[in-house]
């Protein structure tokens, strides 16, 4: 894939960081507002797709490394399973941090309220783990399919 025109590339430079910070906002606020790990991870993954389409698959190798993505994907899944096993003293996937007063342990006010970040028990941590897994999964899928499409096109031409 060749790169697109100069105007599209310059706009991409600005929009790329904005999409990533917005996706992180959706992930971190998953227990207060709509969103969560899966949705925010998909948003960040499409930011990588934007960089890939506007710089071409050859030039974007400077910014996106496939090995780091696969490392973070395994890390996210393992973190999720570890958090599930941590509550095994009572039952599998027990929310052992909720309402305990420590980290993420404040009690939520019943009813409609603007929200306190420091609530929710293990739910914010699980959001971060699932978000890490989903964003790197989409990054790996898009990068691999782009290089494969490039390869078949080159083989046909030669």
């Amino acid at each position, binding site marked *: 894939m060749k790169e697109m025109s100069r105007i599209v590339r310059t706009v991409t430079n600005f929009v790329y960081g904005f999409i990533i910070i917005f996706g992180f906002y959706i992930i971190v606020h998953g*227990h207060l507002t709509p969103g969560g790990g899966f949705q925010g991870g998909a948003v960040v993954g499409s930011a990588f797709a934007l960089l890939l389409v506007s710089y071409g698959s050859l030039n974007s190798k400077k910014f996106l490394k496939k090995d780091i993505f696969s490392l973070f994907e395994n890390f996210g899944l393992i973190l999720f399973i570890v958090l599930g096993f941590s509550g095994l003293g009572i039952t599998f996937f027990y929310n052992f941090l909720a309402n305990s007063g420590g980290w993420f342990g404040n009690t*939520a006010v019943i009813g409609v309220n603007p929200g306190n970040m420091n609530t929710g028990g293990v739910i914010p941590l699980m959001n971060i783990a699932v978000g890490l897994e989903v964003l790197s999964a989409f990054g790996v899928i898009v990068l691999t399919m782009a290089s494969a499409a490039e390869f078949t096109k080159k083989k046909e031409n030669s």
Partner: protein
Amino acid sequence: MKKIIFGIAFIIFFSFLIVSAINMRTFGEPTFSEMDDYFIENAQSETGANNVVTSIVFDYRGFDTLGEATVLFTAVVGVVALFRGVKK
């Protein structure tokens, strides 16, 4: 012959659809079951999260979410294994 069989199958399917559409409830007013009432009453105080949907997905049904994450992981492994021989 083939068209007649297709026509009969289409009419049977469509009549089931019409009957179920007639019996349908008013739009936007589902019945509440005991499960919904329990979640709406207690989810905010038990898990400490304001968003009830997230507390169901990650707390009450955490095992389902583990299954979803594993499905996504399997998809990535499938894609990487399918294009394994492609270099550059």
